[in-house]
Each structure stands twice: as C-alpha cells, then as structure tokens.
C-alpha cells in the first residue's frame, strides 16, 4: 500500500514504479484490480470554495461527505447526484471526490443537470511517466486547448492519477416533490417518463422500479425541484397530464430518490448487477428481448428508461452476451457493476468498443501510461503491454 500525501510524492512514486498499481480512492466502487494499492486519500482537503461563483476545488482524496457538508452549510450541493455504491456492493470505505470523477459517477439528476463530467471544471493529475498535468481550471467556460478534463472523467484511473478536481456546484432548491404512480408495466411507465421529460416542467428525476425490485407493484417516480410555488404548479400540471397516486414532498421525496440513486432494491440480493445506458424508447423492448431469450432479471429503470439497472443470476456469463448484444443492436453499452471474482475474470467489466475506438483508447493509454501500470486491463489492453520507461507522451511523435 502506498499513500502519497502530496503531488510531488505521488509523482515520485509513479516515476519509480515498474509494476501494476491499483489506483483507489475509498475503494467503494469495486473497480480496484490487481497490483500494489495506490491510495489517494492522502491528497485531501478543500482548496477553494466560492459559493458566489458556484465553484469548489478539492484534493482528489477528499471524502465526498466532507464536500457534501461544506456545500450543505451554504445551501449548495453537487448537482449530478453521485451514487453511493456501498449499499449495492456491500463495501465499507469512504467515497472520495477523485473516485467520483474518475468513474464519472452520476445519479438520477443526470437526465436534467448532466453527468459528473459536465460539472468538472478542471483536473490535476499525474501521468504514468510521473508528469504532473493540469487541464481546465475553475471557471465555468473554458475552451483553452483540448478538454482533458472530460477524458479523465470516466477513465477509471487508467490514464492518470487524479490529484485535484475542480467542480461546478449548485444551489439546493427550496422544494422538491415526487409524483408516485403504482401498477404500470414497464412500457407504460417509460412512455410516461419520456413524455414527462418532453414537457417544459423541468423534470429532474424520472424512474421506474419493477415489481421484482420493489417486492410489491411497479412504481413510476417523477421528480421536480425548485422554488416552492413553482414546484407545486409543475406537480399539478404533471399530475393532470400523467396521473399520480400520491405526490410526496421534502425529505420523503428525497428518500425515494436515494433508493433509486443507490439501487438499494438490489442491495443484499444475490446476483450480478449490470448498468446499461440505452435509448429510453428502446428500454422496454430491451428487457422483453432478454426475457424472450430466457434471461430472467429484475429492473430499476432511471433516466426515463435510458439507464437500466439489471439484476441477473450469477451463473454462466450472467447474461453478458445477451445484454451486450442488445446494446449493440439498439445502441448503448453495459457495465458489470457487481459480479463475483469468477464472473469478473470471464467477462470484461466494460462493454468492448468497436475495433477502431479500442485502437484509439489503447493508443491513449500507451501515451498516458507508457509503463502500462495504471489499473492494467480494466478498460481494455494497451497496444503492447508494459513498455520502456521515459516520457510516453512523446513516443510516436513524427
């Protein structure tokens, strides 16, 4: 275990390393692979917080809870609602902002407010050659040079180790409300959810939980947030349009969405968990096709059907071929979020991309991680495995 406490220590450590490193924040998301653990929690601390500019800069190892607390004191929050993976995965660590950024973790509000990557204004990271790189900054609009902030978001530590992240934050709205309707099947519910997203009522959450997930009847949830008068107006309009058994508000509404965000209906239940991004209108057909081919599963559908959480039996490939085949046919991709060691050894965690994209990804990995030491194999192989030491970024230059 290595735990650098400064960017300089981090860079020294990486420069000296010649064997795989398992880059981790709080290690709550189950992505850590083989190799010496590189613990980033020593790179912690809020570096800057300007509520009036909606900006926060923090060391990558800063616990998410610390960020939530400091933002909460000023009535602000992270708009992208990052999922807490601990209930679903049964992990116990402390989630860090670096982990959220590296995995581009977003929650139900992604459909309205954008993903983690959309709220990342800047990053500092150390490449596999031990070079410290900064990109972006702390301002809302920045097109100065290439956007490596996005490239780092969701790269799961395979291109560099984040040392600092700068974020755009959001004011917590005065009020929230959720329309709850029970008893619909998936096709009916998703049709309602996509319709809700097409209204001017600024829906910030649109989910459906299957009867298998709730243990009761299916539940359609539609959330709106904002100033009190506005929320009550929009809730009324949506209720007229799409119906509701009840409209719940405040903390009761927030609790419902934590359940969707963290996929708690699947917590403690045996089986593999898949996260599928697809077209909302394809969602019901996606699940029907799986069932028709004999893959039984439970569903939590978020993002008006565009995000499917599937719980499958952990036998064979746990449905990998069927699920990824549907993604290839309908558009989208599937990530194995929870699976036992045997399954993870047999099935790639991330959906393999078409060959030309895999080639580009491998090319980027070779340049940013020339020694092939950052979470090797997690997002696909490098072009040539561990290579010579030195400045990888310059290799291949004409």
């Amino acid at each position, binding site marked *: 275990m290595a735990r650098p406490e400064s960017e300089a220590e981090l860079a020294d450590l990486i420069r000296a390393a010649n064997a795989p490193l398992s880059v981790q924040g709080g290690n709550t998301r189950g992505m850590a692979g083989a190799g010496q653990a590189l613990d980033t929690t020593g790179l912690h601390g809020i570096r800057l917080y300007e509520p*009036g*500019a909606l900006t926060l800069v923090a060391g990558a190892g800063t616990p998410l809870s610390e960020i939530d607390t400091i933002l909460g004191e000023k009535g602000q929050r992270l708009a992208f609602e990052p999922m807490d993976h601990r209930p679903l995965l049964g992990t116990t660590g402390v989630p860090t902002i670096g982990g959220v950024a590296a995995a581009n973790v977003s929650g139900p509000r992604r459909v309205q407010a954008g993903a983690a990557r959309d709220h990342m204004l800047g990053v500092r990271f150390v490449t596999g050659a031990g070079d410290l790189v*900064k990109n972006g900054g702390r301002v809302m*609009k920045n097109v100065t*040079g290439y956007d490596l902030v*996005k490239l780092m978001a969701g790269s799961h530590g395979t*291109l560099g180790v984040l040392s600092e992240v700068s974020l755009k934050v959001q004011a917590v709205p005065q009020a929230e409300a959720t329309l709850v309707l029970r008893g619909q099947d998936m096709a009916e519910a998703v049709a309602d959810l996509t319709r809700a997203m097409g209204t001017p009522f600024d829906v910030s959450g649109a989910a459906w939980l299957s009867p298998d997930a709730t243990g009761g009847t299916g539940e359609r949830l539609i959330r709106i947030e904002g100033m009190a008068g*506005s929320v009550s107006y929009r809730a009324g309009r949506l209720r007229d349009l799409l119906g509701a058994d009840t409209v719940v508000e405040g903390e009761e509404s927030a609790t419902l969405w934590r359940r969707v965000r963290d996929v708690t209906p699947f917590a403690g239940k045996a089986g593999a968990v898949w996260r599928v991004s697809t077209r909302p209108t394809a969602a019901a057909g996606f699940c029907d096709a799986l069932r028709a081919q004999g893959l039984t599963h439970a569903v939590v559908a978020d993002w008006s059907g565009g995000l499917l959480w599937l719980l499958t039996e952990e036998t064979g490939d746990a449905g990998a071929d069927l699920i990824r085949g549907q993604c290839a046919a309908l558009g989208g991709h599937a990530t194995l979020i929870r699976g036992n060691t045997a399954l993870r050894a047999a099935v790639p965690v991330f959906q393999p991309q078409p060959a030309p994209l895999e080639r580009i990804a491998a090319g980027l990995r070779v340049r940013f991680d020339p020694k092939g030491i950052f979470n090797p194999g997690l997002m696909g192989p490098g072009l040539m495995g561990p290579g010579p030491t030195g400045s990888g970024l310059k290799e291949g230059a004409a």
Partner: protein
Amino acid sequence: MQMPVPDPRILSQKDALVSALAAVLPGDAVISDPAETRAYECDALTAYRCPPMLAVLPSTTEEVAAVLRVCHRFGVPVVPRGSGTSLAGGALPTADCVILGVARMTAVLERSYEDRFIRVQTGRTNLSVTGEVEADGFFYAPDPSSQLACAIAGNIAMNSGGAHCLKYGVTTNNLLGVTMVTMEGEVLSIGGPYLDAGGLDLLGVICGSEGQLGVVTEAVLRILPKPEGARPVLMGFDNNEVAGACVRDIIEAGVLPVAIEFMDRPCIEATEAFAGAGYPDCEALLIVEVEGSDAEIAEQLEVITAIARRHNPVELRESRSADESARIWLGRKSAFGAMGQINDYMCLDGTIPVSELPVVLKRMSALSDQYGLKVANVFHAGDGNLHPLILFDANKDGDLETCEEMGAEILRLCVEVGGCLTGEHGVGVEKRDLMGHQYAPADLEAQMAVKDVFDPKWLLNPAKVFPLDTSVTRRG
C-alpha cells in the same frame, strides 16, 4: 502571425491532387481556381488571410472519407471549415492546404422527441437545428451569437457557448454522439442517442479540439422542451463592483437565471447612441432573464429584484410584456453592431472567476489608459465569460499591433486571476502563442499526445492551438 512555410513538394503536386480528388467527388465539389479559392482565405478573424491551395465541398460522410484518404496519401494538410464564423482564426488556411468545407452537408437524418435528440449532418446551421424542432415545442440550447450562420461542425470544433449556457451548458454538454472521419479516412461512430458514450470519453475530447482530431460529419444533439415563457429584468448600478456583488448574491440565493448579461459604461453609451434602447445613464448594467410560467417568472423575479434593491440600483426595470422584453434586449443584442459602427474592434473572450470581476474591470481600464485604446465590456456575467471589445483604427499604422499587444495583456490578466484565455471562441491562431501563459510544457505535451493518437502525421488544421515551437518536432 507566424505560419509554417508552405511545403513546395505539396504545392508542386497540385494538379495530381486535383485529379485524385475529382475522381472521388462530383465535378463541382473541387475548387481549384485561385479566383474561387480566395473565398476561403479567412474566417471572421479577417486580420489574417491566406488563400488555400484547394477547397472541396463533399456532401456525405463517404465523400469526406474519400477526400481524407486522398489527402493523407499525398501528405497534404487539411483545414476543416464549417461556416467560417470563427473569431479566433480556427479555419484560417495555409497556402499548401485543402479546405474541407461541410457547407453542403445540411440534412436532418433522424429525430425523436421521446428520446430528446436530433441527428444532423454538421454543415447545418445552429439556428436551423432549433428551426427544425421548434414547431413541436423543442429547441437546441447552445446559442452562440453567430447562430444564424455558424455550423454545428464549427460549434463542435470550438465547443461553442452562448448567452444561455448558465442554465443549459455549452456544446459539449448537449452533444450525445458523432460520426467522425479521421485523417486516415477511417469513419468512427462515437456515442449515440443515449447518455454517456461507452469506453473512454472520446466525445468529450473531440468536442473543442478545433478540428484537429478528425472531421465530424454527423452529430447527435440533445434537444430540450421550450420553457413556457421567459422575461428579463434590467438593473443599472453606479459602479461595477456593486453590479458584480449583485451577480454574486443572485447566484448565491439559489435562483438560476438563464442569462445574466453585463454591460459597462462605454458599451452602454455606444449602444444607446446606436440603438436607442432607453438604457439608464450609469456605470454598469445587468440584464437578468428567468424562465417558466407567468407565476414562476414572478416568483423568481421577486427574489432577484429584492436582491437588486439591496444594492441601491439607479434603475430597476422589470419587463411586463413581450415588447418591453424586446426593448431590454435590444441594446445588448446590438452591442457588437454598435461597436462596429464607431470603430474597428477586436473581441476577446477570456474568462475569470466571477469574484474577480471588479478587480479585472479596474485593471482593464488602466490598460486602456496605458495603451491609449478604448475598451468596452459586454459579457456573460453569470459565468465570468468576458467580452472586452478593444477599439482601434485599422487604417492607422501600428494600431492593430497596439491592439493585439493590449489584448494579450488582458488575457494574461485573466489567467493571472485564475481564469483562462478563451471561454467560448477557441484558441485558433489568435491565442495560439499565448498558450504558454496558461499551460506548462507538460500540460501542452499531454494535449498534443491526444493529437498524436488521432492524427499521427499532424495534418489536420495545422498551426492552430499549439505554439509552433512546441509542436515543431511533431509537424515534421
């Protein structure tokens, strides 16, 4: 502005190249007559001009791929071009290049209101994307001021913003997928009508790469339902600092206006003289716009005007009708025209942390005295994206150079206070040689490494973004 010396080996192959391109394109899609290629000699940064060797206007992704395969074989640089509205010289040709224009690629290919997307060819103009869906109550959110003319291709290349990005984000936040052709002529499909493309976020790094990684021929764009209504409020203050504090307080209060626009005295005076919008005589003016139903608008404006009153505005004018809204926006929307009327101007778009606004405005005014050139400011205050307009006289010897020097000084100031060189226009050639002020060599090295992967021979949009001396070993 230093540009690479044209390669005589390439220039000598012009005829062979014309034949090879004519073999893969319709006859009227290859432009080689110097009288016609001159039309492509510059973009909206007209201070720099250079006619290209050739221009081609393909109509399909396949034709683009064929063109790029030919150019790659000949080793000819290619400069992709949307509508040529770049303010940064992003589409400035080199004398030995082929301009690849997407102007003929304007088709709408697919749309779904349920899935909230539209797929278009990228030669389509920004505003016409909204035009395609607005009858059904939808719009495409990024709204650069050039939206009537600018192409989606250029929007993606420059990651364009607009007045309303405070709420809706910029191009990268509204881009779901692309079809892109690499310099080698390989067609890539990345993302699609679903959220968060799989694998590494290549979409994120392609958007804003100024046409240096590939030619984007098709785009899947997020469309959004139009709000029920929108209404602005105008406020005048007797100093910049108070206006800046008011912006901060509005943001901190948790209301999210769709736009907060700021104009300083020189700008107010010029637009008043030009458009007569009836703006108050004051140091700083804010236009704050909110959206929603009538009741929702009233609810938000109540909070906003209460904050404004605490800062003792010299004027507070809430729009009560479409006509009043139009009058409030009139001056702001004619600001650039008004400036053009009185002078030549250079428009910068450095971005600063909102909290630094008063300091930066004060120092800018000192620079104005020092260089003897007037500066007017009109900008997106909510996100700190400045638009200082430096006025100069193009017919006066040395004025352009003085203006450029002063512009560089202002951009360095933006970086110094924690901001950046460009918030939405892009680097192009204009800010290329200032990149070293914002980025250390390792930072630029990492960006150039991305280009190495997509375009190993560095043929796409040469001599942009990266200072020539930092990229010299790569450009061969």
